[in-house]
Every structure is written in C-alpha cells, then in structure tokens.
C-alpha cells in the first residue's frame, strides 16, 4: 500500500490553516486597522469584552442543557476577519482551539459558494476542522462592514445527543467514528438572517433528543445575533479602522505580556507523561500520552512526542489537543490578560505527530476525546509548571502546580424508565467537583473544581433527584484523597446513588484514565486517589432505610463489591445495590516531611487527612488529644528520612557541594550553580547532582515501590491493567530531601523531564 502525501485539509488529516489568508479570499476581508487613541482603546477594550459576555449570558439563559448551564460546556469567542482570536469567553477554556481553524476553513472552502455573506451563519462539529468532539457544535457568524468580513463571532457548545449508537454520544465501545454521532463539516445554517429549517431538521433528526438539540442550536444562533448586532453598533460609532485597531492592540498587548514572561525563562525542554487506560471494554492495556514543552528564544513549542498511536475510543484530534494546551497557557501564563489568548498563540508552535492518540486521523473514534483532552490539560499544567520552576521571576513560581484532580472526567452515565414508564438518560456531572493540585506555595483547594474553568459548578443533589428517579445516599469529601506534600493536593469526593421509586436502572462507564495509574505529582509531592466505579451488590440498605437509618459510607452490609472497569456497557443496578462513584484527587507538591506540622494538625482535626496516613507519609505524630507531639514528630521524620539512605545508589553519583544562591532555580529544591568551572544542578543543600544540561535524577538516590506507598487509598492497579505499575522515588543523597515521585510502568526508563539548554 502506498501512503499518500498527508493533506492537512480537515478530511483524513486535521486541517492546518495557512499562516495568512490566501490571495483568493483577501478581497473579502476588511483588514484595514487604524491608529487607536488611548482613550478609545480603553473604551473599546471594555466594550468588546462585554459583547462576548452578552453573547455568553444569552446562551446560558436560552440553552436547555444542564451541561451548558451548570458545567458551562460552551464558550463564545470574537475573532478578527481571518479568524484569529480577539477575545475568548470566561467559560470552558479548552474549546478555544476549535473556532479559529473552523473560520479559516470556512473562508477557504465556503467562499464564494455557498458564500460568506451578510446575515449568514455556519455550523460544524467536525473534529478535524473545528470541534473537540462531535458533541461540540460550533456556530460562527461573520460581521460584515462595507460588504466585507470585518470580524467573526461564534460559540462552541456541547449538544446532549447527536445520534450514533450510544445515548448521549459517549460511546465506550466505538471502534471508529462510524459507531458514533455523525460529523457535520461547516454548513450554512443561517442565510439572510433566517435559519434554514431544512438543515435545522436534518440536524435535529439524528438526535434522540431533537427538541433539546433544537433549543441549544437556537441558543447559539441567538448569541451570535446579539454579538453581531453589538459589534455593528461599535462600528457605526467608532468606525472600522478604530475598532480593528483596538482588536489588533488587544492581541499585541497580550503578546507583549506573554513575551515578557518568556524572557524570564531559560531555553530548555520540559516533559510530562501519563497513561490512558482501556481502549475499549475488556481491554487491559495502557497507552502513553506525552506533552513536551520546549522554549527556544522567544517562542514555545508544544509537541506530543512519545505519545502512542491512536487506538479504540481513546483518541482526540489536533484541535482538541491544542485547546487543552491553550487552556493551561491561559490559566498559568495569561491569567491577567482577560482571556486574550490570541497574543500567546502567536508565539506558540504546536507539533503533533499525526496518527497518534492526540492527533488522530479520520476515521478514529472520538466521542471520548474530551477525556483524553482533560489528561492533556493536566499534562500541559505539569510541563508548564516545570518550565515556570526555571523562571528567574519568583512571582511566576506561584503558578506552579502539581497533578490536578481534574486529570480526566469519569463518565458515569445512567438510564432507564421512571415509575411512569418514561425513559431517562443522563450522566453524573458531580465529578466536576475535583480537588485542585497543591501549588508550590499553598495547599490545593479541596473540591476546588477545574483550575482552568473558573465557573464550573457541581449540580445540587436536589436538581439531580428532581430530574431522575434516584436517591443520593451520600456525597462527601473523601479524606486523604488528595496527595500529601509540603503543600498537599486537594481532596475530591465520592457519591452513592440508589434507584428510587423504580426497581432497576442501567449504567454505562466511559472513562479514559486514572482508574489504575494516578498522575505523577510534582517535586516530591504524593499522588491523589484514583477514579472508581463501585457496585455494592445485595446490601441491606432497604432494611436500614425501613429501620430509620440512612446508610453512611461503609455502614450497609454488602453482599459483594464489584469494581467496574473504565469502560463498560449495560451494568444493571438493582434495588438493593449501591452505586458508588469515586473521582480522583489531586497530587501534593514537595516533600511531605517538610510540611509545617501545625498544618498537618489542622488537616487531621478537620478530617481532611487521617491521623495514621499523616504519620505514615508526613511523619507528624499527634497525641491522644490530637495535638502535635513535637518530639515524636522530629524523631519520626528523622527516621523516615534516614530510611531513604538505604535506597538504591545513584547511577552517576557526583561529588562536591556548592555554596550560595543558584544562578537559576529549578523548582523549590534545585538550582543551577557554577562549580569548579562547570555549570551544575545542585540540591538546595548544596550537593551536586548532575551537569547543568544533564538529568539531575542520575545523581539522586532512588527506589521503586508499590503505588499504595504514595497514598493508602490507592487500590491495586492489577484490577484494571496488566502492566506492572510502580512508584519511583528520587531523593538527594546528601540531605535526603524527596525530590520527585514518578508513577510509571516498571519497564519504563526514568523520565528526563527537565532538560536545560538545547540552544536556540
């Protein structure tokens, strides 16, 4: 078979737009930008921002979907005439990458026929062009001025069911995209301001919930109408060159802020990896996902080097992967730039190997792409954090975070018929209540939510129970589910649900990661708990209820407890069965033996961490009253530290000690120093570990142990995967500080994740 030359046109390969608009469409674009005086700029900056907010609130108010209203699975955008970003909205951040390529594709492929014209709008859910997966529909509208395209507005929004073999679109058994919801390349849904009812019906017809899909499509159209109208008003008032000048300056200013931050960081390469689990039901495989970040001069490059080939229902496309990374760039590097991500994107190159898990080719299955994407976000956060740890600007060190709890979203879908025989189907949105990672200077917030999406909210129990025939027995924060560390990771939650008023209901599991292998935390922090789907069969819960007791966790007598795999279909829950959904906690930051003992006392008193685990991992001993036993703590910490002396010797031990402050930091514990005419990486205690451009781990003590050593809640990975999973720990041979924890397969080589230098 001959392999054709890849065509990055959004059909088999992802669409990769040209750097600038082709000659053929230039006449269509209104690109004249004028000087904008500082006062007009400040006014227009606010006004354009408010246009986008109005666009978003219009969608929230007119949408029908809890996924939109509570989980905020949508975001509006303003783009310039050629589809480059001006403003992104403050809702779901990873949708960022979808709209821009979609607009460019439309300009390249839909002009002059059927035509980009005043009063037209386009829609698409094509993941190879401009969607994270088929459920995310983009609606895009040109803003015309003087018969040319002045700008674009649009939104991406998650539609609840667009057909295919799995209700709700998340299909754990899909072998390819033909098992899933259909793909719609950009079509002109609105012409001359009127919706094309033929296309609307064609679109709705595929859905199990056509009315809901209709409501949400109309919501997106209403949002675009508001935004187009408001930008036209600004154009009338200020004139096109001034408004365009302001749009350009918004991006230029953001770019300048981004460049200023990059200037504090040395060239280098930072690498993070994790595993996706279960390509389909019954699969016990592990698949590597890797996000590599390189800084060279004034640019960043993100690459998916080392990522495994696409497989089963585990892959995402280029647009989703870029969106994932952009979400964390925005949150960690552009937090003060009011969602003007376009400025940063100008200085970022994305290099993804086609045919891999994070740049899948058609016809890969994609309905679960968002789960892979979530893990990409978590990996991007780790790689960016490792890079920031090398910045000379201490204020940027405050943005360093360990492994987030939102490293994937375990989809726990349920369905059945209610007492009146009416069908229902939905999924628990509760896992949005993720623990937040430990930062380099403060604890991760317990149940803080998604770090990249400031507004996501867990549904109320009463909202879930009002819609569906179930009763939530408990929904609680799980103590110790966040990882230990100098700054601990945030705890996450679990919920328990039983059928209510019906005899049985059916569950589907569609999860992609972190049931077996937790995400590796940062700089010696410990991992959080994993995701779990637990079915407690044949309990005595009905007897307990009848006797006047609401069963608490662990209280009901359980016949058998089944742990369901990440992907499963048609699991029936009977009236005596309790379904427990556990979602993963966040990782801690830094050596737990350096945690302030007073903070550990508070952890234990508040119930966030158990006393035994606090003593085991953090070495803090409490007396019977729960007060600190300072002497016992000091002794316990000394002995835990001393144990590390017995770990395996470094493969390339170094001699010598350095003095004074490092010329450049690497995280809180390491730094680059001048030592005997050589530039070296040394521990904070002064011990030299490696040459400046080498892997510091080569000079560190190490051991391999079971992952439960890192968190007592972690169950045996063998329940889910075949590979041997280990916790690899690295410590300074001199001061015995724990410098890193790596969670990987037993036969993986050690990860060289911080590589300084590399030239421009």
């Amino acid at each position, binding site marked *: 078979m001959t392999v054709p030359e890849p065509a990055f046109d959004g059909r088999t390969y992802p669409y990769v737009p040209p750097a600038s608009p082709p000659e053929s469409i230039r006449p269509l674009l209104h690109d004249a930008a004028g000087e904008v005086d*500082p*006062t007009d700029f*400040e006014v227009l900056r*606010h006004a354009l*921002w*408010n246009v986008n*907010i109005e666009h978003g*609130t*219009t969608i929230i*108010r*007119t949408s*029908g*979907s809890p996924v939109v209203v509570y989980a905020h699975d949508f975001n509006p955008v303003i783009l310039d005439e050629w589809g480059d970003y001006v403003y992104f909205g*403050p809702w779901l951040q990873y949708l960022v990458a979808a709209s821009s390529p979609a607009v460019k594709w439309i300009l390249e492929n839909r002009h002059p026929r059927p035509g980009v014209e005043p009063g037209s709008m386009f829609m698409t859910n094509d993941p190879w062009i401009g969607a994270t997966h088929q459920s995310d529909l983009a609606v895009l509208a040109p803003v015309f001025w003087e018969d040319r395209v002045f700008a674009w507005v649009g939104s991406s929004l998650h539609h609840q069911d667009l057909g295919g073999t799995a209700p709700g679109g998340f299909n754990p058994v899909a072998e390819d995209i033909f098992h899933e919801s259909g793909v719609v390349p950009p079509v002109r849904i609105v012409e001359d301001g009127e919706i094309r009812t033929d296309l609307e019906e064609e679109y709705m017809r595929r859905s199990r*919930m056509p*009315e*809901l899909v209709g*409501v949400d499509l109309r*919501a997106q159209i*209403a949002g675009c109408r*508001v935004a187009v109208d*408001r930008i036209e008003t600004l154009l009338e008032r200020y004139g096109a060159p001034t408004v365009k000048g302001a749009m350009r300056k918004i991006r230029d*200013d953001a770019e*300048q802020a981004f460049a200023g931050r990059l200037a504090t960081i040395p060239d280098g390469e930072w690498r993070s990896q994790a595993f996706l689990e279960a390509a389909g039901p019954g699969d016990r495989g592990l698949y590597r996902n890797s996000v590599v970040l390189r800084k060279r001069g004034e640019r960043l490059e993100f690459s998916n080097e080392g990522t495994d080939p696409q497989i089963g229902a585990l892959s995402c496309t280029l647009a989703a992967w870029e969106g994932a990374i952009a979400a964390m760039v*925005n*949150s960690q590097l*552009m*937090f003060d730039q009011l969602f003007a991500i376009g400025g940063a994107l100008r200085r970022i190159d994305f290099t993804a190997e086609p045919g891999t898990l994070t740049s899948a080719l058609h016809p890969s299955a994609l309905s679960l792409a968002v789960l892979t994407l979530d893990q990409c976000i978590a990996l991007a956060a780790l790689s960016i954090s490792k890079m920031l740890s090398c910045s000379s600007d201490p204020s940027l060190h405050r943005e360093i*975070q360990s492994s987030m709890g939102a490293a994937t979203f375990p989809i726990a879908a349920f369905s059945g018929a209610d007492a009146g025989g009416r069908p229902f189907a939905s999924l628990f949105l509760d896992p949005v*209540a993720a623990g937040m990672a430990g930062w380099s200077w*403060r604890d991760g*917030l317990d*149940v*803080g*939510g998604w*770090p990249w999406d*400031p*507004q*996501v*909210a*867990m549904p*109320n*129990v*009463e909202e879930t129970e009002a819609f569906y025939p179930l*009763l*939530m027995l*408990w*929904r*609680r*924060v799980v103590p110790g589910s966040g990882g230990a560390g100098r700054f601990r990771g945030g705890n996450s939650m679990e919920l*328990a649900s039983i059928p*209510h*008023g019906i005899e049985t209901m059916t569950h589907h599991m569609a999860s992609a990661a972190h049931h077996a292998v937790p995400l590796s935390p940062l700089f010696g922090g410990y991992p959080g708990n994993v995701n779990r789907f637990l079915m407690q069969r044949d309990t005595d819960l009905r007897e307990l*209820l009848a006797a*006047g*007791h*609401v069963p*608490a966790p662990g209280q009901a007598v359980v016949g058998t407890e089944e742990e369901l795999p990440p992907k499963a279909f048609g699991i029936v829950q009977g009236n005596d069965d309790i379904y427990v959904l556990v979602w993963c906690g966040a990782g801690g930051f830094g050596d737990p033996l350096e945690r302030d003992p007073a903070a550990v006392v508070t952890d234990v008193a*508040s*119930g966030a961490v158990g006393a035994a685990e606090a003593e085991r991992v953090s070495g803090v001993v409490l007396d019977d009253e729960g007060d600190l036993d300072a002497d016992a703590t000091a002794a316990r910490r000394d002995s835990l530290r001393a144990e590390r002396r017995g770990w395996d010797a470094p493969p390339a031990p170094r001699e010598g000690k350095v003095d004074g402050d490092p010329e450049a930091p690497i995280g809180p514990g390491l730094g680059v120093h001048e030592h005997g005419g050589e530039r070296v990486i040394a521990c904070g205690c002064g011990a030299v570990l490696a040459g400046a451009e080498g892997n510091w781990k080569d000079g560190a003590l190490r051991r391999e142990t079971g992952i439960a050593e890192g968190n007592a809640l972690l169950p045996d990975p063998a329940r889910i995967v075949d590979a041997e999973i280990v916790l690899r720990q690295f410590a300074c041979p001199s001061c015995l500080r724990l410098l890193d924890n790596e969670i990987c397969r037993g036969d993986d080589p050690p990860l060289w994740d911080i590589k300084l230098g590399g030239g421009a």
Partner: protein
Amino acid sequence: MAYLGVDIGGTFTDIVHLDDDGGVTATKAHSTPPDFERGFLAAVGKVAEMRGESATDLLAGCEIVLHGTTVATNALVQLRGAKVGLITTRGHRDILPVMRASGRAKGLPVDRLLHASEQYRPDPIVPPELIVEVDERIDAAGEVVVGLDEGQVEAAVADLRAAGAESFAICFLWSVANPAHELRARELVQAAAPDAYVTCSHLASARPGEYERFAAAAINAFLGPETRGYLTRLKRDLVDGGLRGPLLVMQASGGVAPDSLAGDLPVLTIGSGPSAGVGASSVLAQQRGEENVIATDMGGTSFDVALIAGNQPVRSQSVVENQYEFYLPRTDVRSIGAGGGSIIWRDPVSGVLRVGPESAGARPGPVAYGRGGERPTITDANLLLGYLDPDNFLGGDLRLDVEGAERALAAVGEEVGLAAVDVALAARQIVNAQMADLIRQMTVERGMDPRDFAVYGYGGAGGLHVAGYLAELGSVRGIVPLGTLSTTWSAYGCATSDVVHVFERAIQLGSPFSGTLLQDTLAELEQEARDELSEEGIDAERQVVDRFVEMKYPLQIHRVEVPVDEDEVARPGETLGQKFASIYDQLYGKGSAFEGAGSEIVGCRVVGRGRLPQPRVKAAAEADAGEVPSRSIVWAGEDGAERLDTRIVPAARAAELSPIAGPAVVAAATTTIVVPPGATASTDAAQNLVIDLDGA
C-alpha cells in the same frame, strides 16, 4: 401624622422627617458602630432640634418609623456573626463547605477569574466541626423516606451547644417539598435551647437547590442574633422615647417589613441600602410620570445601577454575598468600581490609560484632599477641569488642592504622552464609558433599549457624570435630584416604602395549561400575603397584590418571570403561552425560542404590598436673585480640550434661571451638576434638575 425614615450606613446615619403638610426635615449624624441605635437616636434628636420640638414629641408624633440598616450587611462583610451549629441530612454534611466547587471564584470581577492560584473559598460561615448529620430523608415528591430521628436531633443540639453554638441552622434536603422535618427539628432545638436563635432553610429560601438554600439559612443564622439584638434594643429605646407606631425595616426586596420579621430573617435585609435608594427613585419616577428609569448612584468608590421598568424596580433572583450564592428576590442593584476616588493610571504592559477599579477611598482619598493621596483620581480630574470649585467643596468644609491634582495628573500624562488636562478629559470619558457599559449590559440583556429610559443620577458624583454617560448611551434625558432630600436619598427611600412580602411556591404544569392548580396556588399565596399584611395592620384597601408565574420551555433551565392577571390565571390555556413567548422574544430576540415542545410553568410568586400613605414634599423657598458668577472650565470639544467661560448657577437659583443653556455648572452644597455645551437644564416642580442633551 408624620413619617420618619432613617438609613444607617457604615459612616453616616441619614434621617428624613416628613410631616403632614409636606414639610421635610433631613439631616445626617455619625453612625455609631457597633451600637448603631445610639447614632439613630442622635439623628432623631438632631431632627427634633431642627424642628424646634423635643425628641419625645417628635417620636410620639410619628405614625411609622421606617428604617434601613446595614447591621446585617456589615456583619457579613466583616464576618462578625454568631457561632452557628448546622443540623443536616445524613450523608450530606459537605454541601455547604464545598460550595458546589465554584465558591472560590463566585462573584469575583472578571479580570481575576482566571487566576486560580490566587483564589480561595471565603472563611466558613459555619465551622465544619459544627455541622452534624441526623437520620432523616425526604424525596423530591415530599414523601418521607426515613423519618426524623428526634433523639439524634436532641443529641446534636446538646453537642453543638457544648461546642459553643449560639445559633442554629436546620438544613434538610427537600424541606421545600415537605417542611415537616425542619419544623419539628426547630421545635426540638427550641425546647432544648430556648434562648438560641434558630433558622429553617425552607423559611430562609423557598426554592429547591440545597446549596443556595443552606447558604441562605447559614448566613441568616450567622447574622440573626446580632440583628435581632440590635432591633430589640432599638425598638425598646424608641418606645421608651415616645414612639407608639410600628418600626418597619427595609428589605432588599425594596419594601419594608415589621421589625420582628427582620429579626427572624435578617438575610432579607442584606443589600437593602441600595434598594432604598432605588425606592426613592421610584417615588420620583411616579411623581414625574416616568415609567422607565435607570437609577444610578455614583459615590466615592462605586457606581450602582438599578432599573425601574413599567414603574417597578427590576428584581434579580439570586445574590452573591461574600462568594456565597443564594436565591433571594431583591432589587437588582449592580456595581462596578467607578467613583470619584477611582485611580487614573497607566497600564505598564499596554501603555494605555486606565481608570479604576482601584480606588483611593476616603483615606488617603484623591490627591486634592491633601490627605496623603499621591495617585490621581476622577475627583482630581473634575477639579483640574474646573467642574469642582476648590473653595466650595462639600459646602466649603474641605479646601481642594488644584496644584496637587494637576501635578499628579501631569505625572501620569508624562507616561502616556498627554498633557494633564487631556489626561483628565480622557479619564472622564473612560469612566463614563465604563458606566454606560454596565447600564447597557443590564438593559440589553433583558431585551430593553437604554434609550427608552430616563437616567437618574444621584450620589456625590452622579451630577458630575450623568451627562457623560447619557451621551455614551445615546440617551438624552438625565435627572438629578436637587432638593433637601438629594443627600439623604436612601433615608427618603425608606420613608416612602411600601410594606412588601414575597411568597413563592414551586409547581409543575405543562402546556396546554388547564385545571385549577395555578389558580389555587396563586390564591393560596395571595391569601398568605393578605393575612400577613392584615396582621401588620394594613387594611384591605391599602393591600396590592401582584402575581407572577415563572415559565420556561420544557427543556430549559432558566426561567422567565411572567406577570399575570386574574383573567389569565382563570384561563391559562388561552393566553399564557403566547404571553411568555412574546416576553421571551423581547428578551432574546425573535426566532430565538424553540417552541416545538410547548412551554411550562415551574413556579408561582406573589408580591404583597401594603401601601403606606405617601408624604407630599413641599418645594422650598427660592433664594434671592443676583449676579450669576462664572469661571473658566475645560470641555471636550471636537478637536480636544476647549476652555470656555462657564456660568456657575447656585442650585437655589436653578428654578429661577431655567432653562439653563450649557455650558454651565449647577452647584449645590453636596453635589455639582455638569451641563455640557449644547445641552440645557431646567428644574421641575419638585426641584429636580432635568438635563436635556438635545438642548430641547
């Protein structure tokens, strides 16, 4: 008989006395935290003295005392409240503490939303160790799944008391569907701890959605003891001082309620101060015959906006206070950090001029105050341009430093390449545009056109800017209250309030609408409202009841409030669907609705209003005629700054000199009104200054 309106803020206690003849006596006294009742009584004494009578006679002569208080609001902001014990449904103790995972960013300004590393949940209203679970469970239909374990409640009360709880919140799932368990638990708490303060969640908020309801209950329990204590002391002092009539307390809903209710539900008074100001604007709007009004209050640090549409203040359903969100129908007052104290600065990254949101506050305040402020503010800009008179600020109480203001503005000007005067003009334009943006957001998102509204501008800085944001909005008519009452606007709002009670109930009704559920529910709610009003001594002819239904398309989450009349309720099938659709179209644009699946009714709301007699306000005597002074003032012309000789009209002579052609400045004791070139200003019958940008 007379009315007394008293509004207590953090700094000043404002008082308005309205007598039978329409006579007005208004003044201010210093507030006296934490014993606010002392400041209250001092203000009463001051008014009595101004009227030449004793405080006892004055109180005895008052039919009603209407009172707005920030006691609860301040206590919440400063987290100064009771130690609360919370009793909740087993399995769900974490509902309040985890705040639906969104508490860290709730209510934050948008420019801080992305910065997760700097976000925190607020300090807990209820310490987690004071949350106790008991066995009980009710389901969505209100059916009891597990009965209340009374022994566990009693044990919980004992434990919580031992741990220091002074106030109790009882928060059970689905108490809105069936309040029996909460009510029984309250009895048990009261029996075990008769002196303790108790709040039931279904009484604090009548909506499903447990987090928001529990938050309202917890906050209520937190504020309850202090608020009730204050109102009890105040009532005692007033009665001892001669008051025979009732003490009514301002609610955030925009009406007043008896002091006992305010003591039970202080959560309803949070945000009542701004609501009272809107109430005063409502009265003014009725007097002036304006149905649609944008009420704006610009002070030193913030700019507050509310809407009055069709004679009614526009309400919002949910509130964020201290990052806690809860449902509470109240006057929708929104704020941005734009005021006289807003700092003018250069953004080092973009190099452009910015204004606010940081404020110099009262201390150090603007540079011109000479109290150590070094960064220029909007007040400094207004001074340098000539709008403010350095020798006559706040009636001459404070001499303003023009040179200091100019120096500070010039320093910023040097950074952005502008002269000091141009910086001042640009800063005014930026702040005017920000204020117009907020107004536009509030109107446009409701499908209203701001140009259909008259704009009222009050607060210390309102008159200086109202013409500016009028122009930004494309509106033409602005009104600035000028009379004695303009400086005690919220107190005046209290004095002219109605008694208001809101009753709500969730129902579920799909189209085509039929049957009597809607009619019955509204009738029951109406009866509850009328009973409550009657109990408060408001007879039937003074009772006004407005009915609303909450509607949505079946697959939607958000609801739209639809006012309904007798007829529509009796025959809902005929008109309600259509009425909802037309309101929906107005809100979201034609063609936005997907009407294929009909519509549904999800809630009923009745607003019961007891109309209190409205005082008449008499015009004050006019001052003597004489020479009108003028000074040189900088205006924004077509080609930049333009210096024009500008008339300075004393407020007392505004009526006599109407219409006043711009450019002009109307100077009152506590405010200054700018009339730009091309505009005119005239006084109306009630001494308000009406600015017309078209010069008509």
